[in-house]
């Protein structure tokens, strides 16, 4: 059974804004599926529809086997949600929040308390559990939000931009937690604007732009569709033309960039050594060498015609 299904899902806002413009989706149980797209692409709107916070204006969706429009209460019992707005109360302590969530899900008091303690341990917030959330750092807030989403052991977990604004260390911690959850069988649906996040975590990625899915596949296959890796070679004495002749034997030369010679390789890293040797034999000195893999950004550009992250590259962790 599909954990999440959507058929021709549409959401038009007053004023004619087509935030979701005909989306079909099928996420299997146990999958990690990521929506990748820039701000305003419709990711959050789709999550809000799937989590019963918003009604679609056309189309239908089912989560955990229940229709979101007709059986919302049943959907809510089966899902865990950590939204972008991190719906937290600064006056509550972490422990109180998770316990409240347990109560909202109808868990008996002792059971709720037991699970709260276990989750606090799991997200490493035991020390801060009795401090008010208003004093928590950004990373801590995301962790307590995540913990509260798990208190009723949901079958499907929705994470809307789970690591936006976090430092690299906190980001890695969230990724590890998500991977562990998935290993236990939870289906994870996440949205992100970070290529690396989609690449690292997701079994499948849906690229979304202007309310539509423009491409959907595993990260590897998406990248392979776009192209093969290429070498960027900077030469010592700038003999670009001669170098191009040499490397032309190994693969398709690409237009040179900033004085560097580019060549597309058929088989990737394995061909680096022969290329260098050939340049060496031709008497050309290699100053710098870089193997560039196609990124999801390239996929994004190819499918949508514009870049995903104009200046965000510096924000990505190593």
């Amino acid at each position, binding site marked *: 059974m599909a954990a999440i299904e959507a058929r021709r899902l549409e959401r038009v806002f007053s004023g004619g804004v087509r935030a979701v413009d005909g989306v079909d989706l099928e996420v299997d149980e146990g999958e990690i599926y990521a929506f990748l797209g820039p701000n305003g692409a419709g990711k959050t709107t789709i999550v809000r529809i799937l989590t019963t916070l918003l009604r679609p204006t056309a189309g239908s969706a089912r989560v955990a086997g229940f229709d979101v429009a007709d059986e919302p209460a049943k959907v809510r019992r089966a899902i865990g949600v950590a939204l972008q707005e991190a*719906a937290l109360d600064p006056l509550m302590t972490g422990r109180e929040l998770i*316990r409240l969530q347990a109560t909202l899900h109808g868990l008996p008091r002792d059971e709720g308390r037991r699970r709260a303690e276990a989750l606090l341990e799991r997200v490493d917030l035991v020390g801060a559990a009795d401090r008010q959330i208003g004093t928590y750092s950004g990373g801590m807030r995301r962790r307590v939000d995540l913990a509260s989403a798990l208190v009723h052991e949901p079958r499907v977990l929705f994470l809307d931009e789970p690591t936006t604004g976090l430092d690299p260390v906190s980001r890695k911690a969230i990724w590890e937690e998500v991977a562990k959850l998935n290993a236990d069988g939870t289906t994870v649906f996440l949205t992100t604007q970070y290529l690396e996040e989609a690449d690292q975590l997701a079994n499948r990625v849906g690229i979304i732009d202007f309310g539509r899915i423009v491409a959907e596949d595993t990260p590897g296959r998406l990248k392979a569709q776009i192209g093969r890796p290429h070498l960027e070679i900077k030469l010592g004495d700038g003999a670009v033309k001669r170098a191009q002749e040499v490397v032309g034997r190994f693969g398709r030369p690409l237009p040179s960039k900033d004085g560097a010679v580019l060549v597309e390789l058929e088989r990737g890293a394995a061909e680096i050594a022969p290329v260098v040797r050939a340049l060496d034999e031709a008497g050309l000195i290699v100053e710098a060498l870089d193997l560039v893999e196609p990124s999801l950004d390239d996929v994004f550009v190819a499918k949508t015609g514009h870049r995903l992250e104009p200046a965000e590259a510096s924000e990505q962790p190593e």
Partner: protein
Amino acid sequence: MGWRAAMATIGALVRRAGNELLRVPGAAIPGVLAPTIFFLGLTSVFGHLNALPGFTSGTYQSFLIPISLMQGAGFTGAATGVNLARDIEQGWFDRLLVSPAPRSVLLAGLVISASLRSLIPATVLLTVGFSLGVSWPGLGGLAIAIVIVLGMGTLAACWGMVLALRFKSQSAAPLMQAGMLVLILTTTAYAPLALLTGWLHTAARFNPVTQVVETARQGFVGGVTWGNTWPGLLALTGLLLLLGALALRGMRRTAI
């Protein structure tokens, strides 16, 4: 959701609302200060109205205090609406909506806390009032007044919630406050019906809250009779059913 879980949820929401008072220093003060200041101020300013023929009660304080009690409840309830608007703006409300708790349980949790909190300004007002010579209403009169305070707090909270759910913004706060102000003051608030002039006389005749005022007032200005009690309770119940239904409808339509 079973009734035990529903009770637990309502309890948790009431406790959370209590945090605002307990964990934010001085948060209770505006809710208490405003009605008390109005009580003291209005009795000082309009106290001599009591000399007009038509006023049958002892002092103007005794005449006015039920209004102040109701205003305190109205203010507290409206503040609940403002808090909900804030919670909607900041995303906290999504957490409640996404959970499987039924909308009626969420509504009850939000509204009951307002009702209980109305007792705080009421207690301060009665203390101040009695020390200034307000006549003792008798246990029956007091009980009736308290019931009406709780009811008005609930009513004001429902009103605040309807607006919060409709506008989803704290800028609706003045409307929440003004609505309650108008409802309570377009009655025999300042003077008996015979002494009201112009449009206010007409408004007070038809405003169901006038009945509520007279019911709350009876102990303070005279004796308590069933004949004076049931109209006010009926009016209050009717208004609660109406606004409660509107608030519940607003909650259920949040996904539109």
